[in-house]
């Protein structure tokens, strides 16, 4: 399995009173944009901390590029965990020199990556004088300075203004278009929906879902229906096979169909039972709604 960049097996982190991550397992394929979705406190950052070697797992293990963890493998991964961490009294250039030294890359790579994130003209300003958006962009520059195979970003647009969010998203897409695998942790579903190809959904340290984002969207086919005689409609629905009543909205019903069944079949089946529909529509759950249902 050469195309798996990250494999996590039954990873668990216990603190004195809580279990932050509980037996978590998933894989990240090379070239994918992998989302880690979960509300605050769901174990995202703890998980990232463990795979980045800063948090020690209680049990379980993980492999980067098919190899058991060792620090030097992280040179192939560029990562931002929570906040941009730099020496505030050093300039952007000086901070980048520290990072380049640790990652074993030549200083000449710095200028190019600072240009990429639009900080080349401000590179001699001290980090502490930077705006949040600039700090975030510098963090991306630092993570990307040696063109890593994997870029791991934790809440990269957190706290940014709309322009900052747009800039960072464009940057991520630019980088991804060069074939870099991206792991993106976020509680912004919209972000994951727009950007990611695969995702894991976390709640209280366990995975509720792991797989392609399109499966997360279409796990089930649901329809909203209504008829002139709602009582009859409901009675028929309860007797038919392959249909589950999900919700009774009073004027409309929400039903779920078994795999392979669709709206045409539903309409036909009801018609055979003398029910005439006045309303039939595919019910598209937004990812957000789906996500909220998942973590409920």
């Amino acid at each position, binding site marked *: 399995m050469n195309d798996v960049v990250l494999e996590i097996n039954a990873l668990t982190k216990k603190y004195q009173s809580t279990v932050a991550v509980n037996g978590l397992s998933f894989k990240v394929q090379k070239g994918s944009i992998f989302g880690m979705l979960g509300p605050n406190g769901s174990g995202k950052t703890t998980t990232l*901390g463990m795979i*980045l*070697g*800063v*948090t*020690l797992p209680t049990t379980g293990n993980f492999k980067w590029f098919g190899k058991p963890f*060792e*620090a*030097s493998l*992280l*040179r192939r991964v560029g*990562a931002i*965990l*929570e*906040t941009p*961490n*730099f*020496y*505030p*009294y*050093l*300039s952007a250039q*000086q901070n980048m*020199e*520290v*990072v380049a*030294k*640790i*990652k*074993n890359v030549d200083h000449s790579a710095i200028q190019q990556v600072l240009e990429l994130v639009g900080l080349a003209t401000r590179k001699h300003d001290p980090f502490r004088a930077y705006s949040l958006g600039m700090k975030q962009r510098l963090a991306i520059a*630092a993570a990307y300075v040696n063109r890593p195979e994997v870029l791991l970003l934790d809440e990269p647009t957190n706290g940014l203004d709309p322009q900052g969010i747009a800039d960072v998203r464009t940057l991520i897409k630019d980088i991804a278009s060069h074939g870099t695998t991206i792991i993106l942790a976020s509680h912004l579903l919209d972000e994951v929906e727009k950007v990611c190809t695969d995702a894991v959904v976390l709640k209280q340290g366990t995975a509720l879902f792991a797989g392609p984002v399109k499966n997360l969207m279409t796990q089930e086919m649901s329809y909203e229906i209504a008829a002139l005689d709602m009582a009859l409609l409901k009675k028929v629905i309860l007797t038919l096979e392959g249909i589950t009543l999900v919700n009774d909205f009073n004027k409309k019903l929400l039903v779920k169909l078994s795999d392979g069944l669709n709206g045409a079949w539903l309409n036909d089946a009801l018609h055979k039972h003398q029910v005439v529909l006045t309303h039939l529509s595919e019910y598209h759950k937004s990812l957000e709604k789906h996500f909220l249902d998942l973590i409920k």
Partner: protein
Amino acid sequence: MLQLLKTEWLKLKGYKTFWIIVAAYAVLMAITLFSLESFKLNTGSTAQPGMQVDFKSLGLFSFPDVWQNLTYVAGFFKFLLAILIVVIISNEYEFKTIRQNLIDGWSRKQFYTAKFLLIVALALGATLLVMCLTVVLGVPNTYHITPLVFFTRSQFLIWFFIELFGFLSFVMLVTLLIRRAAFAIGIYLMYAVIIEPLLALRFDNLAPFLPLESFSNLIPLPFVKIIGQSVQTSIPFSSIVIALGFIVVFQFLSYKLIQTRDF
């Protein structure tokens, strides 16, 4: 190894506080040692001149005595370097740069080694500075200088290095443990100024086995010569062993702490 030290240098060379403390250390020490040279203590009054105590004419600045005298006085300034180490290490926690160093690809062992080397480099630099000051002050004050006279008791430079390195190792461990600069300095002062002196006072026999005491013991007080007492110019082998033992313990605990903690 050299790469680790170079990285530490990149972190520090643009840090104003680092330069201020290093400059304060060098300048204050030089001023103090030079003014000691011209120090004259008059036991009488102006009207009735009594005995004059003149450090220079007592030979305190002549080789070989000058090695012990100056390394002893220079030892007082280690507190400035202690503050520097507290600031440097607590910064790594405060700005979460220790976390970023690990994320960027340093192992925990490399982070520890970098700080270990930084302390070695600081202690070496300070020792070199003391050596230069000793030569500058000692050579003009020595009547007849020969290599033998010059090198006799120059081992006090080694004891100075061990004293400083041990002391900074202690401070490194305290800061790694406490993380916050203010608390680390507080805890350190409480231990150095209250706890250890009290222990030493209460249990006489224990004194040589207390860490800070064991480091200070490497350079015995030389100025008793002024009042005509004989100076202890050599130290027992056991003092060196105890001091080195504490250094090994402090460094090992620092290493273990970095290995086993979440950042």
